[in-house]
């Protein structure tokens, strides 16, 4: 066994490998990212000389660079370095309250002049890589719950920091990602369910204490209202439920064929707040209709399916864990985001991968796709 090379991740380009790229996955992502351009332009009505469109176009280009980096960096180098990356990411999250920018009561961003960095968004991929490192260096056999608890224990630190921002959606998505990585590592479902049960019990105790003993909650109260309103928007149409109701009206009124790009009245007349970021799916629904939206959902399904195939065919456990984590991240984001715009999921600030306006998520997601392609490419390579 060779000594592990030390140093920066090396970028290696193999011309033959290019032909072995999973074009289904790459194609779906490219289609979605290109589709994001007219959708965002429509959602922002081309204001300020198509400011948002131009920015998004630049970000799509940058995201392709990120995708290429993800593809050509060796993911095993990333995993090897992941404790350091993890530490750095936690440092960034911890510094956020001091150097961060506060928007709408949440301190999530660090202003970098050209764009605002969102450490929690970055931390998603960091979590995947770090958990993969944590679990791949372990024995494959899981005897007790204690074998998987460390993966959660490590993650509690960033999750706590993200909750403080506050950003419930990202915090939950990180826990879900960790769970899925743990599952892909071969942990029996029983163990995970047991852990989930314990977690649920802990939540019940915390809320029980809150309601009956008045103990302060570690989260802010408005999240409860948010969750409640997300499921019943008609109850409070002008308050918390407004956004979801307007989003449902937008999607519902799209009908079979949609109102056409730029023609959605809900979108055009600004009935839906955040229609270019978190609620871009309602613009899809209103302007592209059932046919178009099913098409978009199919693209996501394709991405997820390809990720699953790549994960299971992965040449090594690291690749499998990373791909599995990325799959989970996409799945969670798509389901929660689309679900919230249709009123079946609580409203949490989770963007729709590849379509929502926003640099951080787009670049991180593209980088993740790059990593998945990286794994798939390695898989093919060992076949020879």
């Amino acid at each position, binding site marked *: 066994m060779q000594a592990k090379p030390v140093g920066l991740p090396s970028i290696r380009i193999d011309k033959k490998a290019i032909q072995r790229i999973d074009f289904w996955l790459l194609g779906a992502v490219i289609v979605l990212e290109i589709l994001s351009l007219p959708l965002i332009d429509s959602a922002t009505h081309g204001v300020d000389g198509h400011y948002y469109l131009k920015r998004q176009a630049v970000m799509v280009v940058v995201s392709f660079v990120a995708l290429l980096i993800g593809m050509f960096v060796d993911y095993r180098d990333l995993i090897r370095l992941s404790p350091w990356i993890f530490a750095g990411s936690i440092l960034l999250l911890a510094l956020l309250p001091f150097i961060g920018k506060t928007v709408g009561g949440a301190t999530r961003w660090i202003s970098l002049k050209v764009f605002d960095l969102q450490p929690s968004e970055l931390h998603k991929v960091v979590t995947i890589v770090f958990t993969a490192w944590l679990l791949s260096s372990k024995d494959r056999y899981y005897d007790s719950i204690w074998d998987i608890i460390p993966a959660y224990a490590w993650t509690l630190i960033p999750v706590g920091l993200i909750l403080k921002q506050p950003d419930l959606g990202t915090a939950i998505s990180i826990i879900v990602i960790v769970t899925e990585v743990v599952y892909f590592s071969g942990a029996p479902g029983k163990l995970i369910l047991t852990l989930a049960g314990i977690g649920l019990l802990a939540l019940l105790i915390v809320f029980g204490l809150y309601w009956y003993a008045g103990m302060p909650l570690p989260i802010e109260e408005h999240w409860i209202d948010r969750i409640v309103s997300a499921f019943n928007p008609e109850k409070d149409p002008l308050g918390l439920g407004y956004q979801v109701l307007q989003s449902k009206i937008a999607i519902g009124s*799209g009908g079979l064929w949609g109102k056409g790009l730029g023609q959605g009245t809900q979108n055009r*007349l600004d009935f839906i707040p955040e229609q270019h970021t978190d609620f871009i799916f309602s613009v899809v629904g209103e302007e592209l*209709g059932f046919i178009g939206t099913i098409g978009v959902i199919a693209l996501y399904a394709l991405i997820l399916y390809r990720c699953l195939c790549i994960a299971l065919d992965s040449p090594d456990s690291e690749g499998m864990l990373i791909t599995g984590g990325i799959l989970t991240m996409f799945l969670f984001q798509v389901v929660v985001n*689309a679900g919230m715009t249709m009123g079946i999921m609580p409203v949490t600030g989770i963007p729709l991968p590849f379509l929502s306006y926003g640099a951080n998520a787009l670049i991180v997601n593209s980088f993740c796709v790059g990593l998945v392609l990286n794994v798939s490419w390695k898989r093919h390579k060992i076949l020879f």
Partner: protein
Amino acid sequence: MKSKYREVTDPSKRLSQKDTKRIRNVVLSIIVLSFSVLCLQLFNLQIVSGEKYRAMSENNYLRITPIPAPRGDIIDCKGNILATSRPTFTVFYWYLDEAKAEETLPRLSEILDMELEQIEKKVQQYAGRYYQPIPIAKDISPEIYIRIAEDAPNLPGVFIEPQPIRYYPQGSLMSTTLGYVGEISQSQLADAQWADYKIGDILGQEGLEAYYEKVLRGKDGGYQVEVDYRGRPTGSDLGPGTEPQPGKTVQLEIDCDLQRAVENALLEALEKSETAKSAAAVVLDVKTGGVKAIGSVPGFDGNMLISGISAQELDEKISSDEWRFANLAITGLYTPGSAFKVVTAVAALAEGKTTESEMFFDPGYHPMVPSLVCHRRGGHGYVNIVDALAVSCNTYFYEMGRRLGVDAIAKYGRVMGLGAKTGIDLFGENYGTLPTTEWKEKAYAEGRVAQPQFLLSEHMMAGMGQVFHLYTPIQMASVVQCIANDGVRMKPRLAAKILDSDYNVIEEIEPEISAVLDVGPDVLDTVREGMLKVTSDPRGTAYWVFYNVPFEVAGKTGTAQNPLGEDHAWFIGFAPFDEPEIALAVVVDQGGSGSTVAGPVAREIFESYMMLKYPPQVEVEVEPDQTREEH
């Protein structure tokens, strides 16, 4: 080239086939399940409830701003306008946001000279309906118009729109019959017949305005406005919208000039009298039943009412008897007194209870019930029916009452239009009371009279129009019209034609026969002769009023005893005698004597009618215009 990681990929660290399959199945089912839920919800929203959400989205961004349709006019038979719509300007406010409102509203209150609180209250009423423009001030003066127009940049959301408002060019003329309009009330909104009205709509509240509401009301037009999420119009062009359809015009049988003469005569009578507070008169076309004039004074000023009058001012006007809203011509109930004798006369002749040749001796009281006296102390001596009418001999009609009985009188009274609605095209007409034995039994059961039987004296008094009789002026006018028209009673009607907004005739309202009095031709001739003698025989009760009019008038005076106060003064009659054209009834509430108070009013009405119909052929020398001559 060998991967430096090749060795690290230890097969022992890879998952078994079994594990891979398990993970694959579980993850795949999670993906399929969650995406199925998404697709199902998408299908539910877009396909199952698509129509509902489409309607909701249209409801979100489409607003209909109404263009009010002008209400139809009411004009007289010559085309004089009695009620029309006047263009006015209304100040509207379109609520934009709180910050702007805080700046705009105090400024607006200063310009309009309105309390800020009052404006804010109006704005608050529209909370949640801010897509609707809020009317702040109606019928503004040109000065305010200019000030607002000049200050427009500082008044965001304020705009001025023309709005037709009801206008009565003749002022208070005929006000009680024309009625008035007002915003639809809460209880009216709940009424099914006004289902297509909305808050703020104008509705005819009384009189002709109410009766012909469906004819007069136009159909509001409107245009669609696209608004954004805050209800602000985006300025997108959504087409021209629908044009308002103006309401139809109602042309009346009324002659404005005669109407004015009637009201002036009534007002004059009120002025002369110390006790009279109100008076009414109805003038009917004998042949058609068309209402030539209908007066009930005092009335009110519809223009003041519509442009806004404070509750306090209104109270003052009503309590000081300056204004009265009741149309006494159709709602006022008066004992007819001697004016009723024409009905008894018709009944007595038709039933054969007397003839023209029968001479009846009046000693000044009725021998069977000596307490029933005649108004002339010594009595009228021998009188036949014609003389009895002329001199208004009470004793003669006590006798007729005795011979006929109240039920026989009522039989004829009913045909002549008494005790029932005449069917005039107005709401709120009173029935009056045409007493019968049956009526009295019922009234007794209800505790309104002392005994159930009709006493002899009551039968007798019923013959000369006292006790229990209560009629409206329009009913009494119908009685005369019936007599003058050879027994054919026409339904009184105000409206003659329905015209479109350009005054083209759409519909003519045909005269309708209400009843025919089936008596021999001699009966009515005899009664009419008696009525002629009232004004033409030197012994006639109204001879001194009419002796010098250049045409023959048939009439009957009445001085009805009023248990509540002074006597009611009546005059009913028709003219000209040979070819009757108009029939009238005049009553001055607590005016006193029929001949001295109501008679002159009737004379003035007849004269005015004749003057208008047959204007004097006098050559008038017009002075040449000085300025024109210079050229």
